[in-house]
């Protein structure tokens, strides 16, 4: 019997247990207890049978305006045309669709999935390239350049998608929140929802002026934190003033030129909900195309604010908070539904006659 065995024999049973088994057993036990406690789940109660809900005294909001009878016969109607065969089906937008524009030759430019994609008139994808992440809007400029904006940054790309430069908008300490950009000739117009103004800047980034702060009523009211606008060939800017439920007109030097629109849930001429219209585009003829949320619909107005047509909510997802708009050279209205992530084209139907009010009436062809 050597010294170790002798020492071992002298140890009591308790000592041996304490030395040999208790430490690992205690550690394992404590660990197991901790794991059991950590993964203990409270049994979820069984779902109670859903009670029959009392009939709501009022209809869901998104059904109100669409259910309301039209106040009058519209002068013109638009109808949905299927996007040309094969379009988008092979290149669907899987995560996002946040912008739409029409380029030279009526090519369709769409922003989504962190890419700019270009479709030809037949709907086939002709080009695409990656852009900055979380891009909110984009614009086509002279020479085929494409400006893509995210937060307060604008990335400038050549026609083929090669990056050319970057601009940052806003004042030091108060970065812009860009929700719309458009080109007017060589200048860039930026809708800054944080400052509630439209900035006019050079492509180099130098600011030339501010639009939207010279109104007697103050800056734009933007409860939905989104400002959209378009500019016509004469340099007249039409912008959404969502909180006031108005479409406003501005000269390039910032002079207010007027407005139209008001809140209303019944008359289709009015804008519904808390803050509409949310998106805007101009046709080559100078008509104003607006998109609304809550009742997802698109409407066409004369420059003076007379309602011409309504593209109904059945064409869009009811949860749309934006319907991105563009108009091609033929006056067709393109819409991008970011919830369904689909692009639709609406064409004006042929002239059919005149109604009792003396206005030209158009029927669906």
């Amino acid at each position, binding site marked *: 019997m050597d010294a170790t065995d002798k020492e071992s024999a002298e140890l009591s049973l308790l000592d041996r247990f304490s030395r040999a088994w208790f*430490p690992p057993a205690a550690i394992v036990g404590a660990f197991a207890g901790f794991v059991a406690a950590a993964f203990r789940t409270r049994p979820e*109660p069984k779902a109670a049978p859903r009670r029959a*809900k009392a009939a709501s005294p009022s209809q869901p909001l998104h059904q109100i305006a669409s259910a309301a009878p039209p106040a009058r016969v519209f002068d013109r109607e638009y109808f949905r045309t299927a996007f040309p065969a094969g379009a988008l089906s092979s290149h669907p937008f899987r995560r996002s669709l946040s912008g739409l524009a029409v380029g030279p030759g009526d090519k369709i430019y769409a922003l989504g999935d962190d890419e700019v994609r270009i479709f030809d008139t037949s709907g086939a994808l002709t080009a695409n390239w990656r852009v900055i992440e979380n891009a909110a809007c984009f614009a086509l400029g002279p020479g085929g350049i494409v400006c893509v904006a995210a937060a307060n940054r604008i990335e400038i790309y050549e026609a083929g998608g090669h990056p050319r430069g970057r601009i940052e908008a806003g004042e030091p300490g108060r970065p812009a929140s860009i929700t719309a950009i458009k080109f007017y000739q060589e200048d860039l117009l930026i809708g800054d929802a944080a400052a509630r103004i439209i900035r006019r800047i050079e492509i180099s980034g130098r600011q030339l002026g501010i639009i939207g702060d010279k109104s007697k009523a103050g800056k734009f009211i933007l409860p939905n934190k989104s400002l959209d606008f378009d500019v016509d060939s004469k340099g007249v800017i039409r912008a959404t003033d969502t909180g006031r439920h108005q479409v406003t007109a501005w000269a390039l030097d910032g002079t207010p030129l007027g407005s139209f629109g008001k809140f209303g849930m019944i008359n289709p001429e009015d804008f519904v909900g808390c803050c509409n219209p949310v998106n805007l585009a101009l046709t080559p003829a100078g008509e104003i195309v607006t998109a609304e949320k809550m009742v997802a619909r698109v409407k066409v107005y004369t420059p003076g604010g007379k309602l011409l047509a309504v593209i109904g909510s059945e064409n869009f997802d009811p949860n749309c908070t934006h319907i991105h708009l563009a108009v091609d050279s033929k006056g067709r209205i393109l819409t991008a539904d970011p919830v369904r992530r689909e692009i639709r084209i609406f064409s004006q139907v042929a002239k059919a006659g005149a109604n009792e009010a003396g206005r030209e009436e158009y029927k669906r062809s």
Partner: protein
Amino acid sequence: MSEQSTRRQFIDGSFRILGFAGIGGAAGLLTRRVMGGTVFQVDPFKCTTCDLCRTSCVLSHSAVKAVNEFDKCGYCMLCPAYFDVTSQPDEKGIPAGKVCPQDALKRRVVGRVDQDDPNNNYYEYLIDESRCDGCGKCVKACKPPAGNGSLRLEIRYARCVECNECAIQIACPDLAIVRVPTPGLVPAGPPAHQEKFS
């Protein structure tokens, strides 16, 4: 020799006991942290504002109240959670009806005030918790796309009596009442800006 051996054994044993106590204490603390410090709360992503929070709470005046998240709120003049936008508008075009049956949603002008045209003003919306019964009508009306979704229902810890089995949880058809960890939670009263109504 015997004394040395005893001392070594004593030190050895002491360290061992200290080690066991440390492990046990740490495990106990962790277990307590995991198991304790959770409270009932409404999951806003599951909640469908079914109105059962109002009727199922053991309290006569439900512990569930609407709260407004000001970062999300649009400070709308025509708030769809405040006005019943489907009601008949008055001569100024503003809807005459209100969504809240208890008149618990209050508002006040913030920033520059335009007395002539209310469309030029921003409005801050506050909940009068003494009136709010947690029916969730305002929450439903504020949900996108109509509103920004800044209103939500919340169990107010100052009122909740922490039942073993939350009666609202049992009744909720959407399983929207969940236990959420709140380390270091101290039951608090309503936010300072809402106290004035309480």
